[in-house]
């Protein structure tokens, strides 16, 4: 393994650990009464109500509720794990400050949107067939999300390398 790869893996792993421990310092109550309803819940409920107005979905703390289904957003189901992973990878890659900031902002948006799709999708899964929830929630969704985020990271690293190469050749 070359030094660059080792450095990337070591930095990403250390940063991930640091993000994880900082996240666990946030009390459950803050997450479930402030962050989850405001950052995730209302947006997901609006999406569901726009797509299917008859559901009349409401948000109460960390729960998205309709007559037929209730979805609780709990610690770890907020996309934080993937966000920490992507951010650690972007910071560990060692791109320029400009590329890192753009990667972080776009990466954050991507993770947020993917997680919103997951939350809305899980709500419909519960409503349609509760038995499908465990495999979709614990198995298919996490692995697919990792794949999509890896795709984003690959595209970002490619853009960084191309851009830096173009800058170098201009300077030369």
């Amino acid at each position, binding site marked *: 393994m*070359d030094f660059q790869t080792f450095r990337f*893996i070591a930095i*990403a792993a250390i940063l991930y650990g640091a993000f994880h421990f900082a996240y*666990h310092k946030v009390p459950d109550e803050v997450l479930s009464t402030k962050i989850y309803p405001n950052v995730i819940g209302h947006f997901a409920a609006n999406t569901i109500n726009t797509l299917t107005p008859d559901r009349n979905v409401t948000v109460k703390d960390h729960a998205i509720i309709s007559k037929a289904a209730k979805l609780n957003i709990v610690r770890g189901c907020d996309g934080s794990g993937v966000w920490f*992973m992507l951010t650690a990878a972007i910071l560990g890659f060692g791109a320029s400050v400009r590329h890192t900031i753009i990667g972080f902002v776009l990466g954050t948006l991507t993770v947020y949107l993917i997680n919103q799709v997951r939350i809305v999708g899980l709500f419909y899964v519960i409503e349609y067939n509760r038995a499908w929830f*465990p495999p979709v929630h614990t*198995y298919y969704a996490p692995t697919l999300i990792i794949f999509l985020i*890896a795709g984003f990271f*690959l595209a970002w690293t*490619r853009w960084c390398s191309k851009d830096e190469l173009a800058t170098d050749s201009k300077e030369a």
Partner: protein
Amino acid sequence: MNNKALGLLAAKGLVIWLVLSLAGFFAGEKLINTLLPFYETVTESASNGYIADIKIVEDDIVFYATALTAKPITPERPPLPAGSTIQSSISVLHALVPIVILFTVILTWPAHCLKQRLYLLAISIPALLFISATSVPIQLLGQLEIGFQNAAANAGLSREEPFVLTWMLLTEGGGRWLLPVLTGLASCALVVKLTKP
């Protein structure tokens, strides 16, 4: 790598993810069954005080932990007596997630020759054992520790968080996704270095 090649690689990855996910969903229990003795060995080594009996019951991996010695819970509480058996469990699908991620990374990696592909397959075995050792046994032990933590908390006592619980929380928060991604990348990087002409 041009845009077309990158697109093809992404499509290949998606197909591999789909095939592995479906294979795991329908036949993953067989793989986990094969890994049970390994899980038992690692669990016993990591626990230092239990005899581990791990079985698949319905869709869950169930860990029957028999205490070899009295296990103290808190200084103020009576210990768990030696010889008593307690249990914890996680679902088979839960255990398959890091395996699917690891093999998606390794099989999607663009190998340049047959030798490289064979090396990748060979390295996937220790990689599989590594991510299996750092996920399932620790999760099962961590579940037991959660029980002890809750028992202490219910009695109004505080209990120091043991390492297996810290590790379990780290892996459950997303570490069990990061671990196979990094292990897969490290394996591929190692193979590229080993097969360099």
